[in-house]
């Protein structure tokens, strides 16, 4: 068993985590203003934006991957623009994966953040405005510290969901070792060439890690709920 573990190639795992880490950081930054706006607005365009944000949950990954592929390829205006002015190719490389993952995992970041912001007592935010503080400072010092469970859920689930993606990655990235061959794609290929031993080890590792990640989220949220309940209980 130990020998097998030593011979195994861990590059796809590392790639998966690098991709998930980058995607999480990018989404955290970009989703924050969107989630805040969605939580505070009563604009008529809110349902439209919410529906668009939630699309990646219901769309087959192949559909999402197809559109991203079309949009980013060098035949499209966006792809052509980036290639011409920055010399960057946006598909079948790591950059393409990051962009595709950011679309794919968007709802997993936006939705917990939005419900976290919505759970904050509006009077608390208004008390901060009345104290002379702007929106940015209010979000940073009042809203975010009071929604830690939502924050942790958003970050961890986005990370885990990106590690677990398969269809979009395959469509946009293909399977270039060290560049776009992430763990899920590697498992798919192992099964195709009937290397069940490696597939078992990879799949087992994925299963254990995913479980531990979710378990830690639930333990954290459970503890936090007790802490925030005060002593009236």
């Amino acid at each position, binding site marked *: 068993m130990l020998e097998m573990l030593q011979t195994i190639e861990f590059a796809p795992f590392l790639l998966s985590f690098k991709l998930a880490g980058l995607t999480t950081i990018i989404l955290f930054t970009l989703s924050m203003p969107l989630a805040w706006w969605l939580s505070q607005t009563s604009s008529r365009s809110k349902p439209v934006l919410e529906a668009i944000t939630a699309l990646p949950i219901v769309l087959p990954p192949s559909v999402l991957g197809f559109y991203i592929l079309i949009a980013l390829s060098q035949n499209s205006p966006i792809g052509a623009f980036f290639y011409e002015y920055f010399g960057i190719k946006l598909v079948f490389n790591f950059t393409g994966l990051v962009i595709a993952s950011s679309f794919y995992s968007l709802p997993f970041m936006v939705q917990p953040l939005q419900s976290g912001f919505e759970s904050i007592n509006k009077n608390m935010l208004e*008390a901060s405005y009345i*104290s*002379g503080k702007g929106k940015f400072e209010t979000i940073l010092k009042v809203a975010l510290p009071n929604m830690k469970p939502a924050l942790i859920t958003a970050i961890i689930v986005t990370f885990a969901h990106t590690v677990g993606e398969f269809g979009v990655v395959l469509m946009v990235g293909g399977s270039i070792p060290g560049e776009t061959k992430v763990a899920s794609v590697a498992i798919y290929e192992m099964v195709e060439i009937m290397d069940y031993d490696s597939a078992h080890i990879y799949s087992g590792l994925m299963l254990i890690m995913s479980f531990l990640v979710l378990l830690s989220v639930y333990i954290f949220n459970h503890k936090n709920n007790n802490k925030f309940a005060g*002593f009236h209980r």
Partner: protein
Amino acid sequence: MIKININKKLQGSQADMELSINLSIKEGEFLALSGKSGSGKTTLLRIIAGLEDANGELDVGEESWLNSTMKLSPQKRAIGFVFQDYALFDNMSVLDNLLYVKKDKELAEHLLGITELSELKNRLPNTLSGGQKQRVSLCRAMMRRPKLLLMDEPLSALDPQMRTKLQNEILTLHREFNTTTIMVSHDPSEIYRLASRVVVLENGKITNDGKPKDVLLRTSGSQKFSFRGELLDIKKVDVIFIAIIAIGQQLVEVVVSEHEAQNLKIGDAIDVSTKAFTPIVSAV
């Protein structure tokens, strides 16, 4: 001098109504806003704070906070606001709640001293009782040394003893800082103790404005006693009728004539008054 002249269309629970307020408040005045729920008191408070939009003008001293061309944001208005549900920052200690508003440790310690909270300054809000939380909220509202202190039913969630204690502290703070104050309240005894003027709102309009004594005391003419109550029941006993009336937290029985009994419905709001007699007052 604070001049308020504002209009706003409101969607009430029954029908749309227009909030239309024209009011001048002297510096240092303690004004109580009273009236049924849904009469626009809280909305008026929120408009003054800049938390809601309205048409019209709002001038505080030399500054204009609202006119036809501009609306000053809540951040730029020198106000303190005490919410009914305290709205403390749960992630900060008592002291940090105050320092968040202004990094003035001396003032913070002084305020906590007045309200007897010094020993609790490192506690988180969730470990405090309702009365303690509201005192923190009051201190926090004073940290900006506001020109105008707004309180939205600050004591309504507290028990009677805690109310009395907080009323004293509100009075102490008002005497020390002489902050012009507007407080929404339903409680006549609270208004009487704290306010120098009371304004009654009904359906978005001012229907009464004067000294608490004149507005709140219900006696008129030669009446010596008058209470507002709710008719709970009318019973016929032999040849007389007895009305059971709830006045505040007390139930009383009053004999009524057959004619009176026929004109009353259970659930009616009624005035109970009496003329010539000398009440006996004794300590409980």
